[in-house]
């Protein structure tokens, strides 16, 4: 790998480095001796006629330290990358060091997670050790979107209720974390136009018993049957296979007000949950899934959240 546009710069940097070291050595040699006046107590420096500088020499071992420094520098440049594009005799790279450390860490933590992997998500939810590990993982990787209390926010689902976009079976939760999800609701504005969108919004509000304009809802019902049923179903209860939310309950991902619904319907929504398989690995995701499962199944987690956890 080369960061330079031509081989010249590598040589140039190496040259400057070496010349610098050699110059240091030469300076050290030439400056370690000096002609002094016949009186060894004084240097030959005299100012203002009689102000003489005394000779207060440094200890000899200091100069050895200089030489050691130079030798260290040369050895370093041979072993480590530093001379232009020379990779160093030890082939050290920061990536390599990182990978070594990760391998070492895997040796320590791997067995713990292996032990957890052998247990199914439901059972693992009651393991206090797994619960604590899962909580740490959750706070590190998930709380940014789903909040520390896992109750989510606008656009980020609440994980503590038992209402699921893609299904709350332990295996499904694990799949969601492993592979991520991409929830897409198309923009219906261009098709339905402003009035049509408002009608559908009122119909959707009527599904969960929210206040609505009955005339609009009636008109919206027809559009809903044409455009929305494919995903949300004829009864508006949604479809977990495609992540289409249930519109008849009180849980709203983006909000239930007419204005929010109009925005959702006309502009659509594109919601992404990242895949964690590569970042965390399956073993950690397994523990995380059991933690997430325990959030909505407190009875399954009873053993794990005993007082004084």
């Amino acid at each position: 790998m080369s960061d330079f546009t031509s081989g010249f710069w590598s040589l140039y940097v190496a040259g400057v480095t070496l010349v610098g070291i050699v110059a240091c050595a030469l300076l050290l040699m030439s400056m370690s001796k000096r002609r002094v006046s016949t009186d060894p107590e004084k240097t030959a420096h005299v100012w203002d006629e009689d102000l003489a500088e005394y000779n207060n020499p440094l200890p000899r071992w200091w100069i050895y330290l200089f030489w050691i420094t130079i030798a260290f520098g040369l050895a370093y440049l041979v072993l480590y990358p530093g001379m232009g594009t020379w990779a160093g005799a030890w082939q050290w790279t920061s990536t390599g060091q990182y990978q070594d450390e990760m391998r070492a860490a895997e040796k320590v933590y791997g067995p713990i997670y292996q032990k957890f992997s052998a247990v199914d998500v439901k059972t693992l939810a009651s393991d206090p050790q797994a619960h604590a590990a899962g909580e740490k993982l959750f706070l590190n990787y998930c709380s940014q979107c789903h909040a520390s209390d896992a109750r989510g926010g606008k656009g980020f689902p609440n994980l503590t209720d038992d209402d699921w976009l893609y299904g709350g079976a332990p295996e499904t939760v694990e799949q969601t974390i492993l592979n991520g999800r991409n929830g897409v609701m198309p923009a219906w504005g261009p098709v339905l136009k402003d009035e049509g969108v408002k009608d559908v919004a009122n119909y959707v509000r009527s599904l969960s018993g929210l206040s609505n304009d009955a005339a609009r809802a009636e008109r919206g019902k027809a559009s809903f049957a044409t455009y929305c049923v494919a995903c949300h179903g004829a009864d508006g209860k949604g479809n977990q296979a495609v992540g289409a939310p249930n519109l008849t309950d009180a849980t709203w991902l983006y909000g239930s007000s007419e204005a929010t619904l109009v925005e959702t319907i006309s502009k659509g929504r594109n919601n992404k949950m990242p895949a964690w398989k590569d970042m965390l690995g399956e073993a950690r995701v397994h523990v995380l899934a059991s933690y997430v499962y325990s959030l909505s199944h407190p009875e399954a987690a009873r053993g794990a959240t005993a007082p004084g956890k």
Partner: protein
Amino acid sequence: MSAFDGDGLEQSLYEVRRKIYPRAVHGSFARWRWSLVFATQLVFYGTAWLQWNGRQALLFDLTARKFYIFGLVFWPQDIVYLTVLLVVSALSLFLFTAIAGRLWCGYACPQTVYTEIFMWIERAIEGDHLSRAKLDRSGASGRKVALKAAKHAAWVAFALWTGFTFVGYFTPIRTLASSVASFSLGPWETFWLLFYSFATYGNAGWMREQVCKYMCPYARFQSAMFDRDTLIITYDPGRGEPRGARARKADPKALGLGDCVDCNICVQVCPTGIDIRKGLQYECIGCAACIDGCDQVMAKMNYAPGLIRYSTENAMQNGWDWKQVVRRVRRPRVLVYTSILAAIVVAAGVALALRSPVKMDVIRDRGTLAREVEGGRIENVYRLQVMNTLETPQRFTLSVHGPAALGELELLTEAQPMQIAPVTTLAVAVRVRAAPGAPRGLQPIEFTLSTPESRIVEKSRFIVP
């Protein structure tokens, strides 16, 4: 600058070290130094083995970031106490130096203490200063090799024990001892153990006065704390000069001599190899070995002791007696140092006594600023990092208070009171709800954590979108 006169000589700018063979000395100051050697080393080698509440009494656990000092456990949040300790140490150095010069250097500094111990080993194996110098001058021989080997072996053993003890303050010494016994030390423990052993061996065995002369910054800046009333080790030239050898029975006055018999014992005992009769020099570590040496000779000669003594520049110039010297200790500089020092020690003591055993950090969730929940109420999420610095479990309750505009704040979390295990951190997710119709914007709120003994309040913000 004058022109160079031409007939100079070429000279190295670096000085070859002249090995010093200090002569052993006995006397009251040597006794003081040895008592301090025993006192400091008993504390150093001994404290590591003391137990407290089933753990090491003094342990600096760097990996867990917790310092155990007898009954107290310090967390990184308590860094201010470390700062106070350093400030107190610095001010004490200022104070002692202003009163009596380099007391620290002469009696308590590890460099002095270990050099003293290493020289004692050296003397026990190679003999007194004359035999040591003779041994070094002599050619290679079986006896020389045996003596040197024995000395270095003793030094290395002592140094290893020192390194082991030092590391034992950072990793429990009893575990460390069994790891050493079973050759199962970790790589870093091995490194630091050898590093500190090597530092002890190198500094006390080989470097000695070179450390004080060329490496130690305190040695140099302590002279900035000297004034004309600071007690320093002084040769009294008025009494001593003109110096010269004489018979014990001779009357110095008749010979026109001062009290100095020019025996050179003050130079022979000096660990830094200087002649105190030339006056105060930066090399002088204030060990008072020359005082002990000179007093021995003065006693033999039936002269009054104290030709070399602790005295001040002013006292020397004005011929003050000891009482007048002591009176000058109460001068502004000393009083200012003392009062600042006392104020800091008292303040730190009070702060330590009132230190809250449970701490709390409030971390607002950044991703989720606010959410609307049933009834149009606004909810904010916080993570409270609760730290129990005590070695007993604690129970605590949380509450929240805010301005009237937010209405009655509701705090939702796990069942209260909560329990926190000894010396751990607990993250508690907390939801706070404000009444519907709260005005938009940021509002200051306060979380209160109460334990049966204490109460802490931490500020945060509530966001209404």
